[in-house]
């Protein structure tokens, strides 16, 4: 029975590797995975500082969850679709969304693809098939199932991957999305990042099922538990699920075990509700450290490389933010665009009113 198996793992916390399971990626690929993880961490660290400095209003850190983001996104083709939650900037970067775009979005400026309409950390980029997040937890699941279903109908060969958290599994949308995915066998990977917390709610209080992958049984398809701090395991498990979806094998639920090292968001103080000891324990399973040891053991990486990369990544994040910071705000009339394809009379009238308000007429 699935639920008694150990989570799928390739690299152990000490960096040793199950060579029978190693996907034997090329050197470039391995280094690319590592670089993206480091970049994601650097953006995280930078953003939290920016928020504290009052330069951005809000940020959702994903420190500790880099392997889950990068390993999964790497298993997709560029034409595949990602429907995201808010805690997967790394997946967007891997796809090709420039870090600058994350900051344009965080600043809500004139270059923000979302035109300054959502809070920070709701980035997305249609040009790399990454649907921006909305805040309501869980809605992305049935929507992603529908998107995947469209691919099946159109026979376009695309696979959809949807990210969501452990908390999201309690929503009705998880259930209806999973059920439709099962009934219509749509080409989707339902990627649950079980980071053990939903704001202050520990996983043990989120559901009595003990695990999330087991929930797939309620929908007639496979659920699988993966070590989410092992980028290779995440990559391989996702890749297998993607391949299955692409060949018409239907959906897979992946429960990817990881940990939210930081606060839920910059508005949150986790000391109110959880023990530092637990955090420290998970810090020892850091996905970046683990992968670095693996690379070092393979002779692909050394301390100097790492110092250079970290410095570069940090500089990259800062430069990206500088560009965003110096970009003007969206114009007032943008408020009234995109409600409909063509503004209705009431919006045109309100546009006039808004210009009056800001003294533009």
């Amino acid at each position: 029975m699935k639920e008694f198996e150990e989570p799928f793992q390739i690299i152990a916390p000490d960096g040793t590797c199950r060579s029978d399971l190693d996907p034997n990626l090329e050197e470039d690929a391995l280094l690319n995975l590592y670089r993206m993880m480091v970049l994601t961490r650097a953006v995280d660290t930078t953003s939290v500082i920016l928020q504290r400095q009052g330069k951005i209003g809000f940020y959702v850190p994903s420190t500790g969850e880099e392997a889950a983001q990068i390993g999964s996104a790497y298993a997709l083709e560029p034409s595949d679709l990602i429907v995201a939650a808010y805690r997967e900037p790394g997946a967007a970067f891997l796809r090709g969304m420039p870090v600058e775009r994350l900051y344009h979005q965080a600043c809500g400026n004139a270059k923000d693809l979302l035109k300054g309409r959502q809070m920070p950390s709701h980035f997305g980029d249609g040009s790399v098939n990454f649907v921006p997040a909305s805040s309501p937890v869980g809605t992305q699941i049935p929507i992603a199932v529908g998107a995947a279903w469209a691919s099946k109908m159109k026979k376009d060969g695309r696979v959809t991957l949807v990210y969501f958290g452990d908390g999201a599994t309690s929503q009705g949308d998880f259930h209806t999305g999973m059920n439709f995915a099962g009934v219509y066998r749509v080409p989707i990977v339902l990627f649950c990042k079980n980071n053990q917390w939903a704001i202050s709610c520990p996983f043990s209080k989120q559901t009595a099922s003990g695990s999330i992958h087991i929930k797939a049984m309620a929908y007639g398809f496979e659920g699988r538990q993966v070590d989410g701090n092992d980028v290779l395991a995440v990559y391989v498990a996702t890749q297998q699920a993607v391949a299955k979806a692409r060949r018409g094998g239907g959906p897979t639920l992946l429960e990817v075990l990881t940990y939210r090292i930081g606060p839920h968001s910059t508005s949150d103080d986790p000391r109110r509700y959880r023990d530092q000891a637990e955090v420290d324990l998970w810090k020892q399973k850091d996905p970046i450290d683990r992968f670095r040891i693996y690379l070092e053991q393979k002779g692909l990486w050394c301390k100097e490389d790492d110092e250079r990369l970290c410095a570069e990544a940090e500089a990259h994040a800062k430069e990206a933010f500088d560009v965003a910071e110096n970009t003007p705000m969206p114009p007032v009339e943008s408020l009234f665009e995109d409600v409909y394809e063509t503004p209705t009379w009431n919006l045109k009238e309100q546009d006039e009113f808004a210009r009056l308000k800001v003294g533009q007429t």
Partner: protein
Amino acid sequence: MPEITLLQALSQGLWAEMERDERVVLLGEDIGHAGGVFVLTKGFQEHFGEDRVIDTPLSEGGIIGTSIGLALNGLRPVPEIQFVDFIYPAFDLIVNEMAKMRYRTGGQYSVPMVVRSPYGGGIRGGHYHSQSPEAYFAHTAGLKVVIPSNPYDAKGLLISSIRDPDPVIFLEPKKIYRAVRGEVPEEPYMVPLGEAKVTREGEDLTLIGYGTMLHVCMEAAEAVEKEGVSCEVIDLRTIMPFDLDTILGSVRKTGRLVIVHEAPKTCGFGAEIAAQVSERALLSLEAPIIRVTGFDTPFPYSLEDVYLPDAASVVRAIHQSMNF
């Protein structure tokens, strides 16, 4: 031209669009194999196949949620909610996702889709098969809301809705699905969204209705004509965006306005019309605007005739206005 029912006209419009555009897919409970609880989609699944006329599990959230995804990925879904009273499990997906997709993604994604659903009273459905929730949707930025009152408009508005780039809530007055017949061209045609229709010209008072209530307005207009009161009747057809110009033009002419809808009065769509008219045409008003509506109660079963606006009540409102 053949005379057909409103239901047949909708069926025709749907069929025509499915023939024209293979991106159009239908999904809903009991719509395929069984042909729909009102038999509106009878024969569709046989003709278009199970992949385009999809019987779904019992989940409105699943129907609307996956439809949003279908639309986002290039299809033109036309989900059916069996009775609009059951649309609320999908309310979050409608107001927070469907309505906002274009806006929240900065126009990167859009979800052209039409949510069809029978609405309104008159079939002894009690409070869960009779509701008129148009105001909820009219208050939600990003949605269009359409309600036809006759076969010709029904077909044309449905076709326009399906071709529209924005999500549309399309409410079908089930009481008159079969009761109202009219001439309908067999070929496809569009009736533009956002345009009301003056179904009867008049000088003394303006009556505004939509769906089933349009017919109540017409009946009342005819009744008072004998007394020498000339009513202009406006069929709103599109609730959002509504045709304010036609409304204002008429009220400026008549000076009197009675609005009729089935939904409860408080915060019903009639309030918006009344607010707009009294804001923009105050000096034209020769009498207070009167709303003849459903009561501020859940929809009843035994006393539904008392609940629903009828011609006599509208006539009383007309008298009240004329005698002001």
